[in-house]
Structures are given as structure tokens and as C-alpha cells.
């Protein structure tokens, strides 16, 4: 059994305009020491999937179903309907999360020392000195110089990259088994992004964490992930080991996504092949493949475009470990 097994996860938000199906039957696994990237555009459901795993969605505002079993140090846990009380015990201890924007995720009125020490104290019955020492150790680990003195600094006294390091230190203070990193480098400049990604790689091999990396940047994925799930309109449309996905994308959406990135190694001036149209509304999802209205390959499907529009293709395994949700025969792309 895998470390984390998510099966048929669904998250729906009732709104005055109708039911928004943000996550529409998602199934995947993550192993220890592995980085799984979840890639998709805004509104594809990548963040909501992970908020559901963390128990961070309001039970009143959303309907969550499905299962997510984590086989960790705390035994086998069903994360989806864990009582709030129990979730609080493992959140921050067994599972931790890093968010995109370090400025709004750190409390501006407390020193970073207070915040990291608090995260340790909540889950460990130890003296404050022990937690302080642990906080210093973590800050040193994430590469903040003069850590002991910097404990007394406030978030605004740090640059964006340094704040992101503080967030990582806080997330790792209890040595979590699973780290969910939601766009951890999107708000950062490229040179700082390179520093942070390198740091995450080093920490992972040291701590043997499982990492779920949520991002829209296929460049980041290429360097940081072991396996990739591509999401579109709340569903996983392709899943493969990282090398395989880039070398041999099977789903037209993945193919289009890769082709639409301006690439430094491809010279300039060439026209980008954009994906026409826009993602569908999550309130009125089409009956068939959600990507069909934007897809250039529907003519080549056995049964023609009508089949794509009327029947949702299943996520099928084409080569070992490489799944795609498409009616097209694997080699046809």
C-alpha cells in the first residue's frame, strides 16, 4: 500500500449560480520520499484537492466525498472525514503545507521566532528552550544566516525569498511525513526560485518526506518532480513519470500546454502554438471530455468529435505508469 492513497475525491461548492464541481473524482497515490507534481491552470482544482486533504475546507460551504488514506506514523488515517480535533493533531505535525504568498501567510504582528516556536509547542510537550533551539536549527537548515538573532525579527524585515524560507522552516519544524507545497515559488524571482527549489530537494532527501508540489509552471515541474498529474476542469487528465510525460504526452491538453510555453532553448521569433478558447465553467461542465471544445484532435478519434462531446473518456493506462484520459489511440498524437 502506498503512503497516501486518494480515491475518487470530490469537492463541490454550492453557490447561488449552481453547483461548482471543483474536484471531480480524483484518484492518485504518493510514496514516501517522492515528489508528485499537480499541474494545471487556475480553476483546475489543484489547490482545492490539497485543501481537502488538509481539512482546510469549511464543512458548511463545501461537500466533500471520497477517501484519502494516509499510512503514516500515526497509523492509517482517513483524512477526509477526520474529526476537527484529530485533524488539528496531525496538521502541522504529520502533514504540513507551504503557501504561495509568504507575506499573507505569516502573522505581521509576531516575530518569526514566536511563530516557529508556537508551531513546535502545539505538538510537543517540551520546554520553550527546546522549541527555541529547534527553531534556530530549522532556520539554519533553510539557510538564514545569524538565525539566533533573526528569531526576534518580524516578517516585514525579510525579503520575499527569505520569508519563503521562514515558511519552509515553520512547515518542517515537526518533521512532517507529507509536505504540500502550493505554488511555493510563484511569487519569487527566478534567481530566488532556483535557491528555494534546490533547498526543497536537499531537505527532501534528508528528511524522506513525500511532497505534493502544486504548480502551473512546467519548467519547475521538469526539475523538481518524480511523477506528474495534469489536472483540467477538476479531473486528472494525464498522469505519468516526469520524463515520460514530457517526452511522450498522450493527452492533447498536455501536448498543447507544453507547446504553448515560450522556451529559451528554442530560439526566438517563432509563433507560439496557443490553445484556443478558455477552460469551461465548472458549473456547466460538458457531458463528455471537458477539453473537447478546445481540442484539435477530435476529428481523429474513432467515432469523431461527437464521441468526445458525449462520452467522458476513462483514465486508462497506455504504457506502464502512464495514464491518460482521452479517446485517441495512444500513438496518434
Amino acid at each position, binding site marked *: 500500500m502506498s503512503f497516501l492513497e486518494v480515491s475518487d475525491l470530490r469537492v463541490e461548492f454550492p453557490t447561488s449560480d449552481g453547483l461548482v464541481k471543483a474536484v471531480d473524482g480524483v484518484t492518485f497515490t504518493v510514496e514516501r520520499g517522492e515528489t508528485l507534481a499537480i499541474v494545471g*491552470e*487556475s480553476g483546475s482544482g489543484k489547490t482545492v484537492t490539497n485543501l481537502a486533504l488538509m481539512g482546510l475546507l469549511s464543512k458548511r460551504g463545501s461537500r466533500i466525498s471520497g477517501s484519502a488514506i494516509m499510512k503514516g506514523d500515526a497509523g492509517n488515517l482517513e483524512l477526509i472525514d477526520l474529526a476537527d480535533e484529530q485533524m488539528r493533531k496531525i496538521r502541522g505535525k504529520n502533514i504540513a503545507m507551504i503557501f504561495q504568498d509568504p507575506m499573507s501567510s505569516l502573522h505581521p504582528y509576531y516575530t518569526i521566532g514566536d511563530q516557529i516556536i508556537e508551531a513546535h509547542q502545539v505538538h510537543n510537550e517540551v520546554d520553550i528552550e527546546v522549541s527555541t533551539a529547534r527553531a534556530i536549527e530549522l532556520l539554519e537548515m533553510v539557510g538564514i544566516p545569524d538565525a539566533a538573532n533573526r528569531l526576534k525579527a518580524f516578517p516585514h524585515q525579510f*525579503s*520575499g*525569498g*527569505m520569508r519563503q524560507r521562514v515558511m519552509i522552516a515553520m512547515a518542517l519544524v515537526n518533521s512532517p511525513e507529507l509536505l504540500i507545497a502550493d505554488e511555493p515559488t510563484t511569487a519569487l*524571482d*527566478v*534567481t*530566488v*526560485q*532556483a*535557491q528555494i*527549489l*534546490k533547498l526543497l530537494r536537499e531537505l527532501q532527501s534528508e528528511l524522506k518526506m513525500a511532497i505534493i508540489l502544486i504548480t*502551473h*509552471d*512546467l*519548467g*519547475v*515541474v*521538469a*526539475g523538481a518532480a518524480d511523477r506528474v498529474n495534469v489536472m483540467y476542469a477538476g479531473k486528472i487528465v494525464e498522469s505519468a513519470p*516526469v*520524463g515520460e510525460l*514530457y*517526452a511522450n504526452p498522450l493527452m492533447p491538453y498536455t501536448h*498543447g*500546454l*507544453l507547446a*504553448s*510555453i*515560450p*522556451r*529559451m*532553448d528554442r*530560439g*526566438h*521569433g*517563432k*509563433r*507560439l*502554438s*496557443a*490553445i*484556443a478558447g*478558455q477552460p469551461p465553467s465548472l458549473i456547466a461542465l460538458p457531458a463528455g471530455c471537458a477539453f473537447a471544445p478546445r481540442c484539435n484532435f477530435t476529428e481523429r478519434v474513432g467515432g469523431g468529435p461527437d464521441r468526445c462531446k458525449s462520452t467522458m473518456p476513462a483514465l486508462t493506462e497506455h504504457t506502464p505508469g502512464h495514464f491518460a484520459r482521452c479517446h485517441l489511440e495512444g500513438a496518434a498524437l
Partner: protein
Amino acid sequence: MNDTPIAEVKNLQKFFPITSNSIFARVKGENKAVNGISFAIKRGETLGLVGESGCGKSTAGRTILKLYEPTSGEIYFNGENISGYSSRKMKPLRTKMQIIFQDPYSSLNPRHSVGEIIGAAFTIHGIDSVASSKRDIKSAVQELMERVGLNPEHYNRYPHEFSGGQRQRIGIARALALRPEFIVCDEPVSALDVSIQAQVINLLDDLKDDFGLSYLFIAHDLSVVQHISDRVAVMYLGKIVEIAPTEEIYQRPHHPYTKALLSAIPIPDPVLESAREQIVLSGDLPSPSNPPTGCVFNTRCWKAQARCFTEEPALHLLDGSEVACHYPE
């Protein structure tokens, strides 16, 4: 063909005062956002301006359009020195120069319909050659909407009814309304998803040819800049450290900072990505209110020597590039 550059700046500086918080606000110092830059943009050319957050690239773009008053230096538009122009004197020139902003959410007035947003340009400038009455404005606006890929029937809709990519198209239509010659694109695709980003880049490319535009294309994403620009200028801490034709700068970067910046960009291909040689810069950008003496990059440069801390390097020619470094690559 007219050889006069469409836009040119010479030794442009823009400082923002830093004031203390007391009632008797005193100027404590200056944020040297743009600290003496010079470049020229030829007609029909796209100059990419890249750098990390806080390097002064957006301030530079806005100062060229005189949306900020320059602290010192000269700005030429079509050969005309506009540095000292009052806003009244600028108004007729404004039809020739436009800007497209990064955030398509905050740059459109949520209470105005698309028609009003795009049509405002005509009304403000009392343009009658394109549109003499309200009805003509409507048809001119709808023509523009069609040109940028929006449905002209959406004339009466409000910004919130559009997606991010469509909003950016509204911003582009607004900028095009008065048939400008020069557009500053300030991070026009940074807020968009990849598949939509490609649509907008292609649109900007097409419009450039159709309308005979020149762009100053400001972005932090070097792969986007490479795609669209003829020449690229790299900024660091208010200075241009390297400026060169696109092919040249990407293949043979001369300034250590350019080299580090290029090496930090992830390549969307796991095989190339793992083989990529990466220079990870240590430290952060120094404060622009107190830049290092000598070369501005000396605090993070692995090649810095004594001379770099005392003598500021000037831009000089090197194999077709201009580079500001004592020890270029």
C-alpha cells in the same frame, strides 16, 4: 524610412523620496529606482526590459511615458525632447504612446462597461476623424474588440464578466484605440495562465505588424522576453547592466548577472533540465536606497575584485553587446 528612434532616454534618473513618519515629514533618503539609464528604441522594434522585482524596470517604463516626472535626464519621443513638458503639452502626444498593464483586474474600472472603457480614449481626446458621434465611437470600439479577439456583442458587458485573458484583451484594445506608435507593455502576460499567455503573446505579435507598433516589453520572464523582443536590456538595481540583440544575449551573455539570470530559468524538459548548469546566486537584491558603491552587482558577484568595489563600470561595446562590467564573460 525615418531613422529617428521612436523613443530614447539619456541618463534617465527617477528617485522617490523616503520620508519619515513624523508630522514634519522630512526626506530621509531616496529610493533610487532608476539610476541613470540610456537606450533608444527604433521604429518597429521591440525592446525587452528584464530584471527581478525592484530593479526599476516598471518605473523606467512609466517615466518614459512621463507618467512619472523624471528626476533628471532626457526623454525623447520621435526626436522631440519631452522631459520638461507639462501635462497639457503632453496631451496631444499621449495619443501616440500607450501602456498595457500587468493586472487585468485592477487596471479596468469595474463600474464601466467595456464599451465605455475602450471608448473613453476617443472622448478624452475629442477625436473626430475616427468617430464624430456616439454611434461612430461604438462602431470603432466594436471594430477594435473584434481585432483583439473579443466578441463585439459584448460591448455592454462589465469587466467582471470576462476571464483574465479576455480582460487583458480589453486593456490591449484600449491601448490601440488611438492608433498609437509606441506601447509600453508592463508585464502584460504575467498574470495569465500558460495557454492563455501564448494567445496574448501571439496577439501582440500580430498587432505589431498590422499597426506598425514599437514596443517596450517589460517582463521578469526571460523566456517570454526572448520570444517577443528584437533586443533585450537587463536591469539590476536601477542600472542597465547589459543590452544586446536577443540572439546574442541569450547565446553569449557577457555580464555575470545576465548569465546567472539565464541559468536560473527552469527548462520544461526533464532531460535538459537535469543537465542544465545552474548558477545559484546567493543573497538578495540590496536596497535601492543605498546601492553598493562601484558595480551594483558586487555584493552577489562571484567574479568581483577590488576594482569592482571602487569604480563603477560603464556600458561598453563587446562583440555586438553593450555590457557594464569590468570583467565580462
